[in-house]
């Protein structure tokens, strides 16, 4: 369960690549863990590290000294494509990322991120270009993310509004999770099951 999402300000890590897939975010060989911790070094592993574990030269954007502590990632279209691995937002969280800004996300990645307190913000194309242009001019520009108000505050005082699913917003703001909500529907689930006999019994055919 993630901590409640509060207003925060941060400088931004720009990663202007499209269709970044979850195999890039966390390569499959790091999926052998049986817990959620310790994935910070797996994040973008093959973009950041040589096979012997030393940092690549030149360094990947995340490993440039000035990126330390930044919590907002600005990325290209369709971020998080491919595999359903929740290790992707686990690794982003472990590294310190709390919000991503893009024009679009792959569905499963978006859903997984919301369940881990990582906010996938969608902006339109021109706003997206404006943000990249802002960072090109001022790489240390600081943004303030206010989920309750659904706004990104820019250094010049202007605000970019964004949409978010109201239910997801409620959950992430409160830091509560969907399972607690589902468990509260016990009576309805029981009634539905009583009216809909299971289609299969996987244990009947057990060999």
């Amino acid at each position, binding site marked *: 369960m993630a901590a409640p999402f509060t207003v925060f300000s941060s400088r931004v890590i720009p990663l202007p690549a*499209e269709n970044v897939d979850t195999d890039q975010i966390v390569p499959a060989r790091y999926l052998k863990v049986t817990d959620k911790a310790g994935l910070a070094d797996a994040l973008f592993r093959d973009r950041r590290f040589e096979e012997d574990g030393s940092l690549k030269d030149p360094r990947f954007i995340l490993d440039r000294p000035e990126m330390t502590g930044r919590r907002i990632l600005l990325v290209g279209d369709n971020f998080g494509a491919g595999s359903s691995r929740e290790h992707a937002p686990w690794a982003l969280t472990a590294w310190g990322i709390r919000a991503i800004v893009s024009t679009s996300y792959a569905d499963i990645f978006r859903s997984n991120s919301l369940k*881990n307190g990582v906010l996938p913000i969608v902006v339109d194309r021109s706003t997206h270009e404006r943000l990249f242009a802002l960072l090109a001019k001022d790489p240390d520009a600081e943004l303030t993310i206010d989920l309750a108000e659904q706004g990104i505050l820019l250094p010049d005082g202007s605000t970019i509004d964004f949409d978010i699913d109201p239910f997801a917003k409620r959950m992430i703001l409160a830091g509560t*999770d969907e*399972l607690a909500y*589902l468990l509260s529907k016990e009576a309805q689930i029981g009634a539905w099951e009583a009216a809909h006999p299971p289609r299969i019994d996987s244990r009947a055919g057990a060999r």
Partner: protein
Amino acid sequence: MTVPAPRTIVEKIWTDHVVTQDPGAPAVLAVDLHLIHEVTSPQAFSGLRARGIGVRRPSQTVATADHSIPTTDRSLPFVDAMALAQVNQLEANCAEFGIPLHGIGDPAQGIVHVIGPQLGLTQPGMTIVCGDSHTSTHGAFGALAFGIGTSEVEMVLATQTLLQRDPRTYEVRVDGRLTPGVSAKDIILALIARIGVGGGTGHVFEYTGGAIRGLTMEQRMTVCNMSIEGGARAGLIAPDDTTFEYLHGRPHAPAGASWDEALARWRTLPTDDGATYDRAITIDANTLEPMVTYGTNPGMGIPITSRVPSPADQADPGQRRALERALEYMDLRPGQPILGQKVDVVFVGSCTNGRISDLRLAASVLKDRHVADGVRLMVVPGSDEVKREAEREGLSEIFKAAGAEWREAGCSMCIAMNGDQLRPGQYAVSTSNRNFEGRQGRGGRTFLASPLTAAASAIAGVVADPRRLPGIETLAAVGGR
């Protein structure tokens, strides 16, 4: 009297499974079948224990070990202690919560998306989920099947439900007829090349049209399997007699009077005349060629006789950058023909193309032929049952005589978690589903293609067009059950 509005199959399955929905909230959607495997389930079970709750419906849950297990001799050790620990944990979790497990040594073991249909667990009209994006495979039966994250695996284990927003629908109509040497894999690669890897985001594909109706169940599974590579959450095909014939008599399929009842229900599922989709696209099967990818996502695909595109021709700066980076990673030249490009490894297998009919197609090309010098050909059956059947039919002997490695069932080099992987810089033609950077091994370079193209390339030692092989005319595009 009001006439009910025409509905798509997706709307029908959706409505059938909504348990409840609060205003402004997503629907609570009932899940008929939950498939689990070793890689995306451990943290979900830990979550259950932390909350002190159990598995609500173990009898609607099925587990297998497939992702990180060795596909060499099973008596040999795992690639590493972590993979072994993960499989051991799956066994312990299934034992503790009473979930049937088809683990190593079980005759029903195999890739999760191969065994569900094989056992008759996958049925029309169902909702099916799994912590794996290729769950869309099960849509071939007219089921609403989609991949979920581990938090959602925990939710389904705990409540047998999931929170979902109703999906938008996208008709993918494939008219006409495939020509010899062109197969189901080429349909889906052609679709993704047209719409891009994000083209289906937020939608469920429904594949319709004569070319789809003409496909066998296994070929339909290949098409639906890669729906996620087009960004769609799921992809499905309305059930018909082909579906029912495949299902009849399978271990978990309804039998006797229940079969007749199920059949009557399943026949009401197809999309009503006049129902509308949010989006639509039409593809002409007659014009399709074997497809092959040249880049680092499944949307970077071309007909096999084409040339690698040039970044200079891309108007959009983002696409130009992406293509430049992909060609650099793949070490390909803009404008070069893809035919004749050197190949080091050929992989036949995966939940996309690891079924018996896929192996038959590969074997038909490899029979009385031998792989080129220096080429490694791995044939990895999708399940233990596929392996046994291939051995009964003598396919395994054809593979071995051709110089291929005949291995045990699992995901193997599709995801390269188990030690089956490319070395940096190697080129592979792969029947799997993803050509992402490093997907098949750090620094490895993947060309996605059909089993026919993969086998032809193994013989030639370069990317090769299966249609140029003598005897290919007899390989009817839609042949084989």
